[in-house]
């Protein structure tokens, strides 16, 4: 069950780890725009070079940084095929019934797949170098303006952080329950689909029950410690942005401008 960690935080002291989470999230969106804005080979060369540098700066093993791409490689293939076969376009290479393979479609397919891959790796770098709690705190802080139009940003951030905390706990529990049911004879790895399907319920029901149980316990514990929503809560960590944070933002903004205004 635990193979390569994808998107999971990996502790470290690299340049990327030390940047403020708010800045990292903003940079993520700016660079995402730069990826989507790339329209020529030069444009892609630029974002690829930036991504390579970021991976280098993060000091994460390349294997981990690109792990999520391998996970969804089948999905990527489907995107590529769908684009290539349905995009239409003038220069049709071949056609069978409703399928029309065109040069433009292939190009479009590769573009979409490249964009998805690059953004996926960017997002992966963000979550691998930032603690989940930092991410939610940063989202809360960045979302403050939304409060004026009635969005309960603090509650949303609380829900997010609680949900994030539950993921590893539930994963671990799922593994234990899977083992317990395997010991009782459940066949999760059987070649027969019917046997695998029969093992599904003994796994899912206990996980749901335990999720509800934990949620109830947590809500009671929070209430017992005086949590009330719609109250301005104080932060435990309040750090101003450092010079490196400002320079990271500037560099990312510059890359984005370069992409949109200078490159063909």
């Amino acid at each position, binding site marked *: 069950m635990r193979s390569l960690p994808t998107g999971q935080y990996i502790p470290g002291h690299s340049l990327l780890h030390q940047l403020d989470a708010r800045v990292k999230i903003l940079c993520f969106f700016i660079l995402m725009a730069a990826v989507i804005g790339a329209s020529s080979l030069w444009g892609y060369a630029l974002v690829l070079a930036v991504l390579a540098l970021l991976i280098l700066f993060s000091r994460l093993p390349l294997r981990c940084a690109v792990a999520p791409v391998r996970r969804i490689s089948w999905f990527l293939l489907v995107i590529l095929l769908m684009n290539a076969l349905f995009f239409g376009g003038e220069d049709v290479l071949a056609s069978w019934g409703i399928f029309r393979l065109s040069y433009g479609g292939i190009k479009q397919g590769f573009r979409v797949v490249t964009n998805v891959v690059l953004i996926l790796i960017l997002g992966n770098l963000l979550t691998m170098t930032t603690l989940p709690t930092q991410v939610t705190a940063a989202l809360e802080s960045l979302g403050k303006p939304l409060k004026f139009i009635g969005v309960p940003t603090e509650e949303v951030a609380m829900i997010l952080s609680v949900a994030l905390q539950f993921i590893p706990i539930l994963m671990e529990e799922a593994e234990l*329950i899977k083992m317990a049911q395997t010991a009782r004879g459940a066949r999760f790895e059987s070649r027969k689909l019917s046997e695998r399907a*029969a093992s599904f*319920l003994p796994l899912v029901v206990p996980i749901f029950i335990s999720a509800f149980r934990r949620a109830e316990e947590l809500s009671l514990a929070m209430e017992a410690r005086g949590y009330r929503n719609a109250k301005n809560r104080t932060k435990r960590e309040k750090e101003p942005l450092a010079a490196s944070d400002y320079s990271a933002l500037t560099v990312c903004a510059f890359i984005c401008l370069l992409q949109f205004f200078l490159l063909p």
Partner: protein
Amino acid sequence: MAIKIENVSYSYRQYAGETVEALKNISFTIETGDFTGIMGPTGSGKTTLVQLMAGLRAPTGGRVYVNGEDINAKGYDKSSLRQRVGVVFQYPEYQLFAATVEKDVAFGLKYSGLSRRKVTARVRWALETMGFDFEKIRDQSPLALSGGEKRRVAIAGVIVTKPQILIFDEPIAGLDPCGRENFLQFVKQMNQTGTTIIMVSHNMEALAEYTRHLLVLEKGRLVDSGPTREVFARLKQRKTGVLAQTKAQRIVTLLAAGGKLALSPAIVTYDDLLSALKQELAGGGRG
């Protein structure tokens, strides 16, 4: 022999490339029909060892034999192992899932090939062994039962396959004193009918009183093993901390420390202590 562990190591993979060694080169043998206890502080690798013995994890080094067969060898029939080795994990009540108690307990017999009548008979036996009235409980939802009842239903779901080897991972944690006593009596009874029992526990009294052999784990290493009494006597000398002693042993130490009463260092259980004290009284009467 029921289980033979040969130079077994196990490491968990953590972050990129980092590994944590949970078990380091462990070897021991558990004879058929024995009652073996496993003790050690939290994080010493007890649960990992249980999972290896049940064939739920494959060791990263070494071999695990059950009834003389290497259970991780290619072509070994794991499903027959599931029928022969039963495991009761910590908080087994969390694995209940079916709509009725009867269905939940019968889950372990799904692939046994037994007829419907025989399955029902087995389920009845398992639930009655765990102290239930079969007709009353069979159609109830297992999730609506009390905590203690849920645990007994879950255990019934494990013993229903009549395993030759039963492994318990901290089975008495969270039980009230009465439930604990009943449970240990049940385990003793299972052992007397020929089932090999392996029990992981932090409860020194239960280990001292019920097990015949003891394995002591510390930081993934097997630091001591042998007949229970001998191991307890050695642990006392090692002074690995007060947790590794029974209360009777601690009372003997306290009495000796004040220079008040020197009793035999071989005392491990309350029964030992009681008979030693009786002897002391009788001796005192004579002198």
